[in-house]
């Protein structure tokens, strides 16, 4: 039999339970805040980079993180602001597509100093002790293959134009050097103009229009990315020279792959933005779960896409 004193204790215990129960159930109903991952992309003014950023973001979300994409608009100052926001905002990892191989090192170093791992995607920074890992398209090899195919298609004699990307970006030069490592061995192939169109379609259109006025009798144009290939092709159509001039791009963007299938563009190099971006998100996940031993630079193979094998490619990769 319970005494009045024990009843009082029981009553107090019940009251205590009653008081705490709602709070406990409220806590259980509220999801714990998810760890945040930042995806900093050089520019979203190019569909290829939109795919890269979105693939990184969606894989991070699949892995249980909150992920936000930041657009640097090809401006290292904007990129700096994004890094400062990511550090102040409590982001725990940064998936990073740098704007400038040298100019972006300081931003990655800032994150490193704050204890935030940085995983570079597609573009590198010229340092091996700042980023945790760098997943990089093997642009040089891709453009060696493209250069060999260029000689096959254009022949060992002719006049051509090269449109370069951003001059501060290593991808620009790795592509150009890979291409020239082949084409320059054929003295009959003359480069009549080489100009930067900054990886931008509208600029490529403008630059190509101006080049065509000075060099109307060219045989081919090699473009350091597919956005510029689209701009160059547009200029050639407008000038009525799209059947005379062979266009070569690089990236594997869907619109160029489609034009290759329609036999309007000759070839491109297929990078694998989704594969690289997903892998970077998985690396960040592994890091946040304790892994530390990552290879610093990981080249990712590039495939040559031509009118013969284009049916195997699409949606920014190889068809399964």
């Amino acid at each position, binding site marked *: 039999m319970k005494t009045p004193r024990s009843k009082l204790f029981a009553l107090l215990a019940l009251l205590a339970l009653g008081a705490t129960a709602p709070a406990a159930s409220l806590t259980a109903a509220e999801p714990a805040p998810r760890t945040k991952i930042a995806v900093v992309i050089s520019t979203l003014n190019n569909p290829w980079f939109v795919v890269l950023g979105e693939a990184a973001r969606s894989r991070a979300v699949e892995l249980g993180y909150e992920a936000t994409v930041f657009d640097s608009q090809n401006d290292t100052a904007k990129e700096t602001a994004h890094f400062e926001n990511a550090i102040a905002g409590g982001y725990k990892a940064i998936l990073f597509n740098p704007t400038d*191989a*040298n100019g972006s090192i300081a931003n990655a170093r800032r994150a490193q100093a704050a204890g935030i791992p940085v995983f570079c995607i597609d573009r*590198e920074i*010229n*340092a*091996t*002790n700042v980023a945790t890992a760098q*997943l*990089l398209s*093997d642009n*040089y*090899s891709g453009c*060696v*293959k493209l*250069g*060999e195919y260029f000689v096959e298609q254009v022949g060992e004699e002719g006049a051509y134009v090269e449109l370069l990307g951003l001059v501060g970006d*290593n991808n620009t*030069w*790795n592509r150009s*050097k*890979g291409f020239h*490592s*082949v084409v320059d*061995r054929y003295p009959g192939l003359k480069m009549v103009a080489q100009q930067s169109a900054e990886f931008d379609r509208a600029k490529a259109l403008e630059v190509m229009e101006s080049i065509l006025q000075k060099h109307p009798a060219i045989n081919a144009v090699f473009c350091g990315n597919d956005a510029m290939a689209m701009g160059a092709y547009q200029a050639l159509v407008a000038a009525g020279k799209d059947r005379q001039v062979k266009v070569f791009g690089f990236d594997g963007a869907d619109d160029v792959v489609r034009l290759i299938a329609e036999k309007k563009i000759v070839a491109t190099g297929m990078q694998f933005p989704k*594969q*690289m971006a997903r*892998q970077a998100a998985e690396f960040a996940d592994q890091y946040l779960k304790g892994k530390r031993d990552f*290879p*610093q*630079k*990981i*080249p*990712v*193979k590039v495939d040559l896409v031509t009118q013969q094998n284009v049916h195997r490619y699409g949606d920014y990769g190889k068809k399964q």
Partner: protein
Amino acid sequence: MTPMRRFAPLFLALAAGAGICLLFPPVRLVPLRHQAAQTNAVFNAAAYAADFWSQRLLPALRDAPDAALLLSALASNAPAAAAAYGKTPGMSDAVYYLMQGTGTVCSVQPKAVGVALGQAGGEADLLLGTGMLFGNTVRDASGLLDASLFPNSQHFNDLSTELNRIVETRVISRLKAGAAPGRRLRFAAAAEVESGAEAERPLKVVPVEVEFEERP
């Protein structure tokens, strides 16, 4: 104004400068072994390639698998051959191999020499390229060079150009000069084998060492 008072601002400025230098050192001492890896200074690809060729690649050829053994392994079980003998830098479905062996020249083409690994008169098992050499096969087949060693990938790629130049001048020129049907040779070679092409014969390879047997 006393001299002490006159120089006080100068002393203050010097002290402030020293303080700033202590907080933000203008010079950072870095161990020498990091120097090559952490600067964008001029990189001498030709010197690096010459050193790599003589000090590391040529000695590594002695450990390369026998070409006939490798071709047999590639045809019967490509994944096992890749695991045992291949190198795959980064993310790729292509595998690089080194190999060595002896064989007989069975054809001399404009850009390749066909070599039969068995007896004279057989079909070509290998095509040793004699045209212009491009790409990273020579650089990557040994697995001794890693992209992570190079802060700027342009330097890593410049090595391929220089190694290809060495192969063209020292090996391909000798192969072209000496190749004649029926002639026996000892060779070492590098190959990039794409996924799905493991059983293709003759296999295209890059010669990295060639010695002809004396004519009888």
